[in-house]
Each structure stands twice: as structure tokens, then as C-alpha cells.
């Protein structure tokens, strides 16, 4: 019996985000569309921190009961946390999902350039980025500033 199953039971419908680096589950929550989560009264979010893992030693798990992560969300999760595995659960059946990489990211990430128009108070400018995976960066579509992919968690909104 694994450490996980000792802590929380399996779900019959929803998404299990596994192999999240230990104590990084909060980043996953920030990357999800929280408004969409909140609008659905049937959704439950179960967060497991620092459970034993053969692959990572210790890991976090996020179970989203009655919520299917969208393709856009899956792509951003895979970009920011490349170790993550995404499992869709339908009637207890597990379907592993391997998302592609996003070409663009809208919102979710604050531009690291303090003088960017998206950081100007009250301007209705939503940050938008082009993913330049080959250079390991995302580029702000407004101000051109580059942000290393591994630094994205430091700039998550929320």
C-alpha cells in the first residue's frame, strides 16, 4: 500500500496531478483557472504535500475531484513543472495525458519588467507571452522582456 493511499482515497471522476516537486502544489493551484474551479460547487481540491515517491523521493499531489484540467492548463503545467504527470479519471478509469507545450500564455504570469505596461496600475493590459522553448524563456508580447522558464514560479499571479 503506498503512502498516498494511506492518506486519501481514490477519486472516480476528475484529474490527478502527480509527481509535483515537494511543496510546490501551491504553484499548481496558481496555474489553474481558479475562477473556473470556484464556479463549480461540486469541485473539491485535495492537496497532498511531501508524500513519499519512488521517482522524486518526496512529492506533492493535487487531486481535483469533478474537475477536468483543460488542455491550456495542462500545457502550462507541463511547461513550468516538466516532471508533472496528468491523469484524467473517468469512472475510476485512469487515462494518462501527455500535453504539448504552449505557444502562448495569457495572464497567470506577471511580467518581470517593472516598467512594462502590464504592471502599470489600473491599465487594462493582460500579460501575454510567447514561449521560446529552444531558448528556455518566455517573451512578453508587450515589452519583449524575457523570463527564464525556471523562474516562472516566482512571477505567478495570485
Amino acid at each position, binding site marked *: 500500500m503506498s503512502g498516498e493511499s494511506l492518506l486519501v482515497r481514490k477519486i472516480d471522476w476528475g484529474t490527478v496531478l502527480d509527481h509535483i516537486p515537494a511543496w510546490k502544489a501551491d504553484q499548481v493551484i496558481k496555474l489553474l483557472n481558479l475562477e473556473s474551479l470556484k464556479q463549480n460547487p461540486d469541485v473539491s481540491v485535495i492537496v497532498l504535500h511531501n508524500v513519499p515517491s519512488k521517482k522524486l523521493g518526496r512529492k506533492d499531489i493535487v487531486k481535483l475531484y469533478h474537475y477536468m484540467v483543460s488542455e491550456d492548463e495542462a500545457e502550462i503545467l507541463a511547461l513550468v513543472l516538466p516532471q508533472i504527470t496528468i491523469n484524467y479519471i473517468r469512472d475510476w478509469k485512469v487515462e494518462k495525458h501527455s500535453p504539448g507545450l504552449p505557444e502562448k500564455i495569457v495572464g497567470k504570469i506577471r*511580467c518581470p*519588467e*517593472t*516598467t*512594462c*505596461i*502590464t504592471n*502599470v496600475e*489600473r*491599465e*487594462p*493590459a493582460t500579460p501575454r507571452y510567447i514561449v*521560446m522553448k529552444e*531558448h528556455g524563456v518566455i*517573451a*512578453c*508580447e*508587450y*515589452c*519583449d*522582456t*524575457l523570463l527564464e522558464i525556471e523562474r516562472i514560479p516566482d512571477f505567478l499571479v495570485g
Partner: protein
Amino acid sequence: MPSSISGGRGGESPLGLKNTLAGRDIISCRDLSREDAELVFSLAEEVNSGTIHLEDTLAGKKVALIFVEPSTRTFQSFYVAARSLGAEVLSIHDPAVSSIAKGETLYDTVKMIEGYGADCIVLRHPARGSARFAAEAAAVPVINAGSGSQEHPTQALLDVFTIKSRLGQVDGVKIGMLGDLRYSRTIPSLCYLLAKYNGVKIFFMAPPLLQVRREVELYLAEKGVTYRKAVEADEIKEMMPELDVLYVTRIQKERFPDPTEYERVRGSYVVDAKLLAYGRRDLGVMHPLPRVDELSPEVDKLPNAWYFEQARNGLPIRKALLHLVLGGAG
């Protein structure tokens, strides 16, 4: 005999070229092709030589100048250009006496000025990305007249026009860029535009704190432009004999996030006759102006000084650009 052309009314086409800039936003030199730039240069050259007059080609049009940051040359040259083309000018030049001082957003300012019938908006703003944001908000073309430390595409057009006028061509030019390459908005625009030409070689001459931003380097690498960096004074002197042009920039004190960083680099370079002695006799010295103490006045009287001519070129370039963006014949 000088000819006049009718802007935006399907009039005589003096250059016989297709106007690829009609109705377009001019936000970044990344978006401009070599052909776009050459179209502006051809028209500016005719305007400069007096063979074409564009007077009154924008009669009945309104050009809005929104300048949320100080400007002398850019504002005045756009103002004179728009007026001499017959356009009415709506201007916000002193944000202290406009609603911007009350906290009005750029978005609202753009929507308001558009509501007053502006056919084109020329924008200078301290925020990076401001021009692209304004262009998304506005239905009419937006011309970026300086977006913080990001870009200044019309400056790059007049810079490359000056190089072309002086050297006869831009292909193969070897240009040194000396000074504040990190916070200068003219440097990225100039690099992006030069990248559209063949065989250009760029030498970035600056201390590490002021070196060129990574996005500029990535763009140049992507376009196959050769560039080198020099950080020490000795390396800079070694590069001097290779240069056709030395482009000098002021240290952008107002853009330093930390004043102690500014203190560390101020006065770290001065272009004077002594430095120019390391270069070729026909080396051209350019500067977007204003200068502070990085370019000695003793250079003014040397034949190497191109910068006052460069500043003058702002007028024909901005006349040509306004004419073309507002749909005039090419």
C-alpha cells in the same frame, strides 16, 4: 520641377512604389521589412532634395501627439511634419496639465483622443509595451515615438537613413554602439532595423552593467547578424579601426532602477578627438541626442560629426512616414 502629391486620395504616385505602410501601426522595427524602410527613405530623400513636396497631402486629417515623457526633437519634428502636411494636430505634450496627472490611464486617453477624430496617434510613453497596448486599444494607426527603454522605431529610421545618405548603402556597414545599450530605446530599434540588411556587423561597446539586452542578442542571432562585445576601454580602442560608424548614446539616468548603479557607470566613457584618433579618418559619429557629457563638443567641428544632420533628418523621415501611414501614395 518639384511635384506635389495627394495623400490618401489615390493621387499621383511620385515614386511608383506600392505603399506597404498605409494604415499600419509602427510599433517595432521587428515589424518593418527592408522594403518598408526603403519606401520611407525614398520618399524622405525626395522631400529632402525638394523634388517632392508633401504639403497639404494630409489636409482634413487629424494627427494626435500624446507625449507622456519629455521630448524636444521627436515632438517638434512630428508636430512640424504633421502641420506642414496640412494635418490638424491634437496634442498632449505636458502630462502635468492633462488628465494623465489625475491618474487617467493610457487606455482611456487613447479612447478619448480617438473619439475626437484622430486619424493617427503618435505616442511617447515611459512604459515598455505602451505602444503595442495603445495600438490594440485604437482603431487608427499608432506610431511609437518611444516606449520607455524598449524601442524608438522612427529614430532608427532616421538613423539608418543618415547612414545610407552618408555611405551610399547600408549593406555591409560596420557600426560600433557605445554607451548605455541596456536602457537606451534607440539601440534595440537600430539593431532590429539593421538586421534587415546584409553583412552588417555590430560592435557593442559598454561596461557589463550597460550591455545590450538579451532579447536584442537573440534577435540578431536569429537573423544571422554578426556582433561582438567589448567591455574594457582597451578592447574598445582595438575595435575602433574597423568601424564605419560610431553610434554613441547617453546614459539613461532616469531609467536606472537603482541610483547607486547609475553612480557606478556615469562618466565611464567619453567620445572625444583622442578616442576618434583610434578610428578611420572618415569614421562617422552619430548620437540620437540629447547628449550630456559622453560626447565632447570638440567633436562638433570635426568632419566626423554626423549627429546634427542626423537630427535634421528626423523631419523628412517623419513627414514621409506620416504621409505613408495615413495612406498617401508611395
